[in-house]
């Protein structure tokens, strides 16, 4: 059983939990933000992120959270405000989706280059045109090289659990990078489910206060942020970011374990399902994992030894964990929910191909594009993918081109 399927174990910390709530992913994130109580939240409303900032601005208006809420004029300004607030020594968060993230793009790199531990909740959405407000991972893939650690959850519960852990990753002194909590637009943001929350004081203690070593408004500080750095040390600063991203991987592992102890819901960098004796596997990101698991169960019932790997930590890509999980597997189907136009493989396929290329008996890989623009992908389509991967394992021939699941 994987994490989301499991009933919550009794937290080993022995803390008394409040009663579970029927809330959606957006509200669950807002709930965590209230408990974390950042100094600044700056955001611009965009579907499907809207639940987060509607709920959070209600908390602010009702005076139950002390955050300075800035209703900015654009997402570029939202991220800029977070950059300013964090450089000034405050803890800042924002939330956005698809086109909003695109408008923020310049500032994503400014935030990571200045090493400012901002937390963003990204409610994944397609890019226009044609106009589409629904879920795919085009925006997620659009920021994958911007030096932000990125965690992708699969449910409202995980959106909450990850929201609690995010500041402790971003602000770790070995990391100091802005970090993203990704939740699938609509299928997580709008899905009302049973969500178990931690008591306020437990979250407060777990996330602590943001205590920067260097900040712009420190009395007597001579620190400067984002100054001109032409061909003298720009290269070296980027090389430092490489180390910070590497460092973040073990920090994420430690912090996921720590929050898992509190909640009784273990979270890992990658979540495995029935991989131990599997001959073939599907690899997936985010909330589609439920239907992939259902397809795996169905195929298993017919004697096909298939398993599933869900990647939670998308950046930095957990190469060792992925390789370990796929050891001994003959063929893997990679499920991509975005197209990387004109590239030799879509984003997750590229990551899998690069990660597995030096394995002694690397699994054969086959790419599937699914679910673009919110296209529903029922169990039968993932089952079809299982069958195709199974056939590839027998023929031992990898296709050059991706397959498109559910394309009309």
């Amino acid at each position: 059983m994987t994490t989301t399927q499991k009933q919550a174990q009794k937290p080993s910390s022995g803390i008394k939990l409040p009663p579970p709530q029927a809330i959606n992913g957006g509200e669950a994130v807002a709930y965590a933000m209230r408990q974390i109580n950042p100094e600044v939240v700056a955001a611009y409303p965009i579907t499907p992120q809207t639940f987060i900032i509607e709920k959070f601005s209600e908390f602010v208006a009702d005076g139950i959270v002390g955050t300075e809420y800035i209703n900015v004029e654009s997402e570029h300004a939202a991220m800029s405000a977070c950059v300013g607030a964090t450089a000034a020594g405050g803890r800042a968060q924002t939330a956005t989706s698809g086109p909003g993230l695109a408008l923020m793009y310049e500032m994503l790199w400014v935030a990571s280059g200045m090493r400012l531990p901002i937390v963003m909740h990204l409610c994944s959405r397609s890019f226009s045109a044609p106009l589409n407000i629904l879920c795919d991972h085009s925006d997620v893939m659009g920021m994958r090289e911007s030096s932000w650690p990125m965690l992708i959850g699969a449910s409202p519960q995980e959106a909450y659990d990850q929201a609690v852990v995010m500041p402790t990753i971003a602000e770790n002194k070995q990391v100091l990078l802005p970090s993203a909590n990704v939740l699938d637009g609509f299928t997580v943001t709008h899905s009302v489910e049973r969500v178990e929350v931690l008591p306020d004081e437990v979250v407060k203690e777990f996330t602590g206060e943001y205590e920067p070593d260097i900040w712009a408004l420190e009395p007597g500080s001579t620190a400067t942020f984002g100054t001109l750095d032409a061909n003298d040390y720009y290269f070296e600063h980027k090389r430092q970011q490489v180390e910070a991203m590497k460092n973040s991987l073990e920090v994420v592992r430690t912090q996921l374990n720590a929050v898992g102890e509190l909640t009784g819901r273990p979270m890992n960098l990658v979540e495995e399902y029935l991989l131990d004796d599997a001959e073939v596997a599907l690899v997936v990101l985010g909330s589609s994992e439920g239907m992939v698991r259902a397809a795996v169960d169905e195929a298993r019932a017919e004697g096909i030894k298939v398993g599933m790997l869900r990647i939670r930590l998308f950046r930095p890509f957990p190469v060792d964990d992925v390789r370990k999980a796929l050891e001994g597997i003959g063929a893997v189907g990679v499920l991509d929910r975005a197209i990387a136009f004109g590239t030799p493989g879509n984003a997750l396929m590229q990551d899998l191909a690069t990660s597995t290329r030096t394995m002694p008996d690397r699994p054969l890989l086959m790419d599937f594009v699914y679910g673009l623009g919110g296209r529903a992908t029922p169990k039968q389509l993932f089952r079809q993918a299982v069958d195709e991967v199974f056939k590839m394992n027998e023929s031992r021939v990898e296709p050059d081109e991706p397959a498109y699941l559910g394309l009309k």
Partner: protein
Amino acid sequence: MDKRLPIEVRWHGRGGQGVVTASRILASAALKGGYYLQSLPDFGAERSGAPIAAYTRISESPVIDRGPVYEPDAVIVLDASLIGQVDVETGLVSDGTIIVNTANPDSPALKRLRLQPDQQLWTVDASQIAIELIKRNVPNTPILGVFSRSVPVLDIDTMSHAIDELMSETFPPNIVEANLQALRLGHDQAQKIEAGVSANV
């Protein structure tokens, strides 16, 4: 184990009728009943008056399907004028229940429903109840009363608690009270239609 679970419900209505709220109230009632739940709007750009759908799932184990409900155990139609325009009965399981808000159980619209022998049809004039008690045509709470009677998974008291809690967050006590009365009236006035003939049961 409750043999009736898991159950999947599909809601049909028009923007402004409270479809998404009703689905959410049902999900909250499921939480109160000690179950896992999910309430999911069908995603589009919602506009007042446009046909919209929502889904509710109630289960004894965590819900892992976050897609549309294709084979509902129950279908709830908040606006009978959708029958014929939207394929409301599609996929309804062979012994499923369909609940329609209508003033006229003998209306030709209901005859257009293609129902199988073991599928149950229930009606109620939820709009009339809503207009009378809530002073607005929001038929969602009376129809939840019909649901608690025709699909006996969550009793009327559990439903009542859920409405009270959820609506008290945003509405004044008199509106909440009107909705609670509407819920009970819907429950009491529900009619089971036997093979195309209305019969008060």
